[in-house]
């Protein structure tokens, strides 16, 4: 449990809410703190980057950064919320190369603007997909697709 304790003590100023089960850890941070927290987990704890989940919720766009602490068998998820009207967040790609694609994808489907992303172009939506539609947004204007 060493790394988890480390995490807790080193980041205690930044952690807003902490949830822990036997094999899963979830904690919330402010969106400004994401690069620092993620950098700490990825570089200092040496955790494996798994993926980022983005979802549109009434509270705003929720982002979950999942990391695997494999030798402990734990998955650590960092949660943050972004204002749904002006979705912007610092990109973690400069820290984790592997996050490049998922951020591009979230940009495609949720319209989150990742600041300082090295290559924030379209990843999965078609070339002719309209610019301002985001399939996974809850807001009615974003609709089902270009037709709906």
């Amino acid at each position, binding site marked *: 449990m060493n790394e988890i304790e480390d995490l807790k003590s080193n980041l205690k100023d930044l952690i807003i809410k902490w949830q822990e089960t036997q094999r899963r850890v979830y904690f919330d941070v402010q969106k400004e703190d994401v690069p620092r927290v993620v950098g700490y987990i990825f570089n200092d704890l040496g955790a494996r980057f798994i993926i980022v989940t983005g979802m549109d919720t009434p509270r705003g766009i929720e982002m979950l950064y999942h990391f695997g602490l494999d030798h402990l068998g734990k998955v650590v998820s960092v949660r943050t919320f972004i204002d749904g009207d002006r979705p912007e967040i610092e990109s973690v790609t400069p820290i984790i190369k592997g996050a490049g694609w998922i951020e591009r994808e979230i940009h495609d489907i949720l319209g989150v603007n990742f600041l300082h992303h090295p290559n924030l172009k379209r990843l999965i939506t*078609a070339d002719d997909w309209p610019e301002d539609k985001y399939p996974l947004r809850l807001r009615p204007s974003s609709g*089902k*697709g270009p037709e709906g």
Partner: protein
Amino acid sequence: MKLKLKALTKSPWVFHLNTGACNNCDIEILNVLTPKFDAERLGVLLVGSIRHADVLLVTGPVTRQAAPRLKRLYEQAPKPCFVVACGTCATSCGIFKDAYNVVGPVDKIVPVNAYIPGCPPKPEALISALVKLLGTVK
């Protein structure tokens, strides 16, 4: 003319293209060539260039990105050539019917000569479909 058509039925060269399938159909198509099924008995070859193809074997629902490419490839293929929709997705979109990025089944984009349902169709079904398709050529 008749001889050439006859020859066509004896030597269908297949170009395989996946317009958004889950891979199963594609693997089964390759499977058709392998020792257990050995479609080369029937003259079937998998070719690398659309220019050599007689049969376009299309798998998967047609996604928005793939649709214009599918159309383009169909136009680039030398005629006479056949289009076979392989798998439930290609014939009817199947499980992906309502997905926002799926344009529709293959026959919405290009004319289809044969449909092979199944998820995925068994290699035997693929071979039998090919044989039936070629049997209709006269």
